[in-house]
């Protein structure tokens, strides 16, 4: 069979025996997975849109997110700004890891991967603090202390001599109110956080592999590129989640 030199695919990328997009099958699978995941998030965010537009009122993000560790109020979006900055910086370190991989520099790959893992873990830590803080204010997946319809009740309870915090907890537990905002917030940021968590776990595994010299022996660091794609995607999704819950 080797006598047939009419293989006919010399230089023709779609003719078989080739990688038409210049991407290995693994990278291709990652791209299609990300496409699929994009549809998952799109569906959730469209659900957010549908429910928000049919809601009579919505919580004001400047009020909901005005705290940071040590600052009880009056710092709207400061903390989430820091969170977002950390996540985006972790994307930058990921790019540097990929670049180091192209140069087959094991030590630099490991260094930048560790920074990426730290960035991801810090983001998760921030998210944990933010959730805990919201819980302490009486928020949960089915309770929304920021619902505008609760305001008169809270004022009434405060007039009866309760502290604002106690009044809010009493109102949110006793008065029926619309909690689509918190349901969607905890579901969608939770789903995103789950992606970040998986990303951190994957990054840790890949970092350990890189340390052990697996990719050095393989001769290339393509695996870093693949996890890098996932990591950038998770960042990109956060930009949308951030916009929908914190900005608009």
């Amino acid at each position, binding site marked *: 069979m080797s006598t047939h030199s009419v293989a006919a695919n010399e230089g023709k990328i779609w003719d078989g025996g080739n990688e038409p997009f210049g991407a290995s099958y693994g990278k*291709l699978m990652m791209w299609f997975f990300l496409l699929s995941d994009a549809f998952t998030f799109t569906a959730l965010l469209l659900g957010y849109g549908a429910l928000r537009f049919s809601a009579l009122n919505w919580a004001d993000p400047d009020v909901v997110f005005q705290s940071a560790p040590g600052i009880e109020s009056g710092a709207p979006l400061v903390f989430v700004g820091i969170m977002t900055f950390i996540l985006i910086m972790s994307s930058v370190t990921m790019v540097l890891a990929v670049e180091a991989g192209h140069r087959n520099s094991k030590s630099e790959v490991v260094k930048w991967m560790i920074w990426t893992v730290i960035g991801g873990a810090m983001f998760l830590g921030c998210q944990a603090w933010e959730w805990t803080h919201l819980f302490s204010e009486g928020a949960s997946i089915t309770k929304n202390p920021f619902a505008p319809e609760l305001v008169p009740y809270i004022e009434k309870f405060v007039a009866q001599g309760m502290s604002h915090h106690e009044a809010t907890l009493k109102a949110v537990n006793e008065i029926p109110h619309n909690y689509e905002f918190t*349901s*969607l917030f905890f579901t969608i940021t939770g789903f995103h956080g789950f992606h970040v968590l998986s990303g951190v776990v994957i990054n840790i595994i890949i970092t350990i592999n890189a340390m052990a010299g697996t990719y050095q022996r393989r001769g290339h660091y393509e695996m870093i590129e693949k996890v890098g794609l996932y990591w950038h995607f998770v960042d990109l999704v956060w930009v949308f989640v951030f916009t929908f819950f914190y900005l608009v």
Partner: protein
Amino acid sequence: MAHAATAHHDHHAGHGHDDHGHHHETFLSKYVFSMDHKMIAKQFLITGILMAFIGMLMSVIFRIQLGWPEGTYPWMETLLGKWGKGGKLSPEFYMGLVTIHGTIMVFFVLTAGLSGTFSNLLIPLQLGARDMASPFINMLSYWLFFVSTVLMLGSVFVETGPASGGWTVYPPLSALPQAMSGSGLGMTLWLLSMTIFIASSLMGSLNYIATILNMRTVGMKMTRMPLTIWAFLCTAILGVLSFPVLLSAAVLLTFDRLFHTSFYLNEIYIAGAPLAQTGGSAILYQHLFWFLGHPEVYIILMPALGLTSEVIATNARKPIFGYRAMIGSLLGISVLSFIVWGHHMFMTGMNPFLGNVFMILTLVIAVPSAVKTFNYLATLWKGSIHMTPAMLFAIGLVSMFISGGLTGIWLGNAALDINLHDTYFVVAHFHLVMGAASIFGMLAGVYHWFPRMFGRVMNARLGYLHFWLTLASAYMVFFPMHFIGMDGVPRRYYSFTEFEYMAPWLDLNKFISISAILGSVAQFVFLYNFFNSIFRGEKSGQNPWKANTLEWTAPMDVRLHGNWPGDIPHVYRWPYDYSVPGAVDDFIPQNVSDDELPEAARSVNREQTLAAEAANQEKKEETSTLAFSSLFSKLGFRKG
């Protein structure tokens, strides 16, 4: 030439090695946690067949209830326990059976069983690849599927019964455990099972796409791929883009159930008391569900159409008619399938303008569907037809596709849908066009590629018996349902005795039930034939159907992980060179180069191509002028 395996060591073999080599295979690694795509295909097929029989027997039980609503059967109590008290199927379990029958058939048989089996078997073999892109993810895909089947079947046995709100599990019925007994643990298990199923389907689809794009052998251009592969590619892309939306829908529904959010719930009163969960939208669920649900119809149908293309061309001994048009229609169907989901929701109070848009887009699907149908018929036209059981089932698919497709034009019409929505007309329509048609395609595939899987041929005599009984019973069951539906009888009703206007249909219901039982009995002929042939069937030989595609060039007798012992064959032609004038045989496999053909075939081939091209061009010019002149004359213009 491909059979003449060269002794050269194969350097792009990757994981190519044979059983007798140094690599030791245990029972577990060979039959259970196998990473060989051929074994995984068999695992999907056998699981799919098992699920098909379970789903079918469920339908027999509820057909008995519908046919003889007053009857009592002691065996029913023995079989179903408290759900069959006094030998009578309980209404709760009737709903559960209808729901689980639908779920099993749609997802576990016709999605995983059909696409999982044949994508796995044929993609590497027909493209000339050693295995899937990632054999490990492929194995994971099967085992996640297996876990989801276990959960789904397990849900039938929980105390409150399986999910009972219909296979679409619309909230609020599915969201509130207090709504019906089936919305308890059974529903939670349904959602869990589907979530795992989606992960399995995603892994499978990613593998199929990556393999098709990257692992084709030298010379296997995209336009030389068999139509089966094109169908699997489109199916996989649909799966990758639509299943995640169902995942989102399922996550939100699970939260509504477990954490009492109200994504889908609004202003619900239970026994006069308002439900605390409010502010959501049940319609949102329907949008998310049908964004998957409609592509899902084509995820089911397209692999069957792909298999049919191959079986019809091979057994008509003719090139498939309109190869590029067939690819175009697959692509057209794929694109359209994403923008028609609203036709399932005409009755949700949708803006009539939006309804119109969805209606027009829906009716446009008739165009690529008709292209496929006519191309099948044109391929059969004047062919030297070999009526193998596979061929009969393939022709059966075309028949079902036409009968079911025609009623799709009715149902796609927003105005007619007011009358027909959720009636037996819908049941008749989708059972013919996606149920029976896809099952026929799958059976055609099983009969045709059985030798490729097991090295033996299925018994043809039993195959004919199976085909004719199945064809007749399928029409006897589903055709009369159109009349019941046109009379406005709703689907999913437990019995026809409650309302006066349904009473005239009781006798026809008996007829349908008898036909359904007949059809089910016929499937046992298949079951016997299938398992008997695995062990005692006639040995098939290398290329039993004299087909052109690469899977018949790989050795049949040894189980080879890596498919070809030596080099992978190269490809020199498209897969439909049947009955080429001047050729020695009436087929020229894809791996035969022009150099190997007798001079006559080559020159005839070239002359014929030129002549055909010239004739085509002439015809094209002729028809375009004709079309324009007739169009102008219709519009009232006159020449001159």
